[in-house]
C-alpha cells in the first residue's frame, strides 16, 4: 500500500514536459547532451558533461553520477557507454547521467582530488555558489541534478592507487521510506557485498557540515545508493559491464524499463569498515587481495625503506573482509592502505522486505 502511494507520487514528477540539465534539454522521447557550466570565479571554471534521456512514457527521474574522483575509470567509462546506449523510446521516466563530475582529475590523472583546489569532490555538498571550483560544482550539481531527480546512484570504484572488490553502500538513514526503497535498489543493483552506512541514522551534525553526494541527496528526501567497481587505472569489461548491468537492473526495479529483476538473495552485509593508514613513507608490498577474509592482527602487507629494509608490518586492525588494498608501491605517511569490512551480526542485517 505504501509502495503504491510512493509510485504514484514519483510518477507525477516527470509526466510530460521537457527536462533540462545544464545546457542539455530533452523533450519527451528524446535524448540530449550538454554541459553543466561552472564559470571561472576565483579559480578556473569547469564544464561537466551531462546527458538527459527523457523517456517516451512517464515515470520517475533517476540520476547516475560518476567521476567525482576522475581516475575511477570503470564508472566513468560505464556511464559514457550507458549514455550512448540508453533508448528513450523504451524508457518510462527520465535519466540524468553525469559521467564525469571532475574533468580536471581525469585529464591530469590526479586521483582522489580536484587538482585545481585540492579538494575531494565527494565531501563538499551542498557546496557554495561562490566557493572554490569543487564547492561551486557541488552547488551546481545540487541544483541541476539532485533537485531534479527522485533517485540517485553515485558511482565510484578503486582509484588509480586502489585494488578493490565490487561493493555497494546502503545507508540506514532511519527514514523508513528511503531505507526500504534504497535497500531494494542495492539488492537490485546486484553486488553481493554491501556496506551498511549505519552512522547516518539519527546523527546530529553541526550546522554547515558538508557531506558526500549520497548523504546530501538523502537529506533532501531522495533515495540514494553508492556503487563501487573497477580498480587501479583499469576499465575492464567485467567491471564496466557490472556497473551498466547494475544501473539497468535498478531501472527495472523502479519500473523505468520493462522486465523483471532478480535481487541478490544472500549478500554479505558489512556493518562498518576500519581504515588502515600508513605510519611511514616507503615502498608498500601487499600480502593480501581484495575479498580476502583476514583475522585481526594478521599481516596484510609490509613497508620497506628505499634501501630495501623492512621498516613496518601492516596488520588487520579487525577481523573481516578486505574491501580494498593499496595497488601501487608508493606509500606516504598518513595515506590510506586498506579498508577492512566487519561482517554484520545477524541482528544488524536488514530484515527481508
Amino acid at each position: 500500500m505504501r509502495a503504491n502511494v510512493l509510485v504514484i507520487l514519483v510518477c507525477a514528477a516527470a509526466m510530460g514536459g521537457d527536462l533540462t540539465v545544464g545546457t542539455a534539454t530533452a523533450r519527451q522521447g528524446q535524448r540530449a547532451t550538454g554541459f553543466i557550466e561552472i564559470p571561472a570565479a576565483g579559480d578556473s571554471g569547469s564544464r561537466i558533461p551531462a546527458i538527459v534521456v527523457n523517456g517516451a512514457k512517464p515515470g520517475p527521474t533517476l540520476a547516475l553520477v560518476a567521476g567525482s574522483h576522475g581516475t575511477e575509470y570503470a564508472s566513468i567509462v560505464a556511464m559514457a557507454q550507458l549514455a550512448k546506449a540508453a533508448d528513450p523510446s523504451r524508457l518510462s521516466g527520465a535519466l540524468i547521467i553525469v559521467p564525469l563530475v571532475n574533468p580536471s582529475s581525469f585529464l591530469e590523472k590526479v586521483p582522489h582530488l580536484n587538482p585545481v583546489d585540492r579538494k575531494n569532490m565527494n565531501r563538499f555538498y551542498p557546496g557554495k555558489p561562490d566557493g572554490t571550483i569543487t564547492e561551486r560544482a557541488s552547488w551546481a550539481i545540487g541544483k541541476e541534478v539532485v533537485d531534479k531527480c527522485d533517485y540517485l546512484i553515485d558511482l565510484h570504484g578503486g582509484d588509480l592507487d586502489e585494488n578493490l572488490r565490487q561493493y555497494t553502500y546502503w545507508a540506514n538513514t532511519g527514514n523508513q521510506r528511503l531505507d526500504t526503497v534504497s535497500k531494494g535498489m542495492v539488492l537490485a543493483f546486484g553486488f553481493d557485498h554491501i556496506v551498511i552506512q549505519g552512522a547516518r541514522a539519527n546523527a546530529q551534525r553541526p550546522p554547515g557540515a558538508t557531506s558526500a553526494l549520497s548523504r546530501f541527496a538523502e537529506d533532501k528526501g531522495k533515495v540514494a545508493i553508492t556503487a563501487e567497481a573497477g580498480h587501479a587505472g583499469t576499465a575492464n569489461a567485467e567491471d564496466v559491464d557490472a556497473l551498466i548491468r547494475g544501473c539497468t537492473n535498478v531501472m527495472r526495479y523502479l519500473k523505468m524499463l520493462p522486465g523483471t529483476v532478480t535481487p541478490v538473495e544472500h549478500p554479505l552485509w558489512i556493518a562498518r569498515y576500519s581504515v588502515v593508514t600508513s605510519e611511514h613513507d616507503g615502498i608498500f608490498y601487499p600480502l593480501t587481495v581484495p575479498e580476502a577474509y583476514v583475522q585481526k592482527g594478521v599481516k596484510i602487507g609490509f613497508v620497506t625503506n628505499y634501501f630495501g629494509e623492512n621498516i613496518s608490518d601492516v596488520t588487520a586492525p579487525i577481523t573481516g573482509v578486505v574491501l580494498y588494498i593499496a595497488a601501487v608501491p608508493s606509500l606516504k605517511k598518513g595515506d590510506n592502505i586498506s579498508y577492512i569490512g566487519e561482517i554484520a551480526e545477524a541482528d544488524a542485517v536488514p530484515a527481508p522486505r
Partner: protein
Amino acid sequence: MRQTLLFAAVIFCAPGKSADFTVGSATAGPGHKANGFIHIDAGVDAATDIPVIVINGAKPGPSLGLISGSHGTEYGSIVALPKLAQMIDPAELSGTVVILPLINIASFLDKVPHRNPVDRKGMNSYPGKADGTQSERAVWAIFNQVILKSDYLIDYHGGDLDENLHPFAYWTKANQEPIDTVTRNMLLAFGLPMIIAKSGGRSLDATAIAHGKPCITVLGGHAGTAEAEDVHALVAGTMNTMRHLKMLPGDAKLIDHPLWLSHYSVVKGDQDGIFYPAAVPNAYVEKGAKLGHITNFFGERISEIVAPVSGVVVYISALPTVNKGDNLGYVGELAPN
C-alpha cells in the same frame, strides 16, 4: 687496440684496493655496504634527500652506477634496485656499485607520473644547475657525484603509471668506438629482448656517453605495477651485466637475437576524451592499422588512432585519460640488419 686503451682506462679509474668509497653520506670500506643520502640543500624551492647505497667490493674493479626513479612512479625499477642492493654480496664483488633507487621522491610519494611535483620539471635532463630548481639541483648533484665518478652506468625506467610496455632497452650511441661496442655488449648481457637505437639529447645516458661513460637505459614494469616478472628481468639483467664487466664471478651469457629497432614514431592523441586501446605492447602493426579510438564523455566516437608507420608497438597508453597532444604510444621500426 682502442678496446685495449679503454680497458686500461677502466683499471686506472678503479678505486684502490683498500680505499673507502663515499657518495653523499654513505661511506663503505672495502668488502662493505653503506646506506646514506645525497642531500640537496633548499634553494629557490625545498630541499630533498636522495637515497644512495654504496657497495664496495672486497676486490678491485670498476665502478658501476645504477640509477632509478627519475620518474617516481615507474615502480618496476624502483622496487628492483633495493632488492638488488640486498642481493649483492660485497665479499664477492670486484669494484664498486653505487645505487640510487629513487631520485624523484616527491613524484613517488605524491604519485605524480613523469615529473617532479615540486617544480613540475622532468628529472632526466642533464647536467642540471647548482642554483636551479629542485630537479636541476638534484640532477647537478647526481651528475657530479655519481655520473662523473662511475666507469659504467645503467639508467632504469619502465612504463609509467599511464603506460603499458614490455621490457626493452635503449642503445644510445655516441657514433664512436669503442664506446658504442661497449654499450652494445652491456645491452646484450642485460638481455632485454627489444633494443631501440637512438642518439643525442640531454638524458642521463646521452650525457654520460658524451663524457665518455658507457651507459645503457633499461625499461621494465608498467602502469603502476611492480610485478615479479618485470622486477626479475631488471635484477637478473643487472647481475648478468656485472658478470660481463667482471665485477661478479661467472660467465655472462649474451642474448643471441634481440629485436633491434632503428627508431620510433610517437603516436599522439588529437582530442580530449576517453581512450580505448586496440593494440598491445609487442604487437606488430602495419602503417594505418588501428591502435585505438577516442570517445567523448557522451560515449560518441570522435577519433580513430592509427599506426603512423609499420613496426612494433613499443608502448601504449594504459589509462582511459587522453588529452589533446598527449603521447598515446610509440611504434618502433625494425632496423635493417
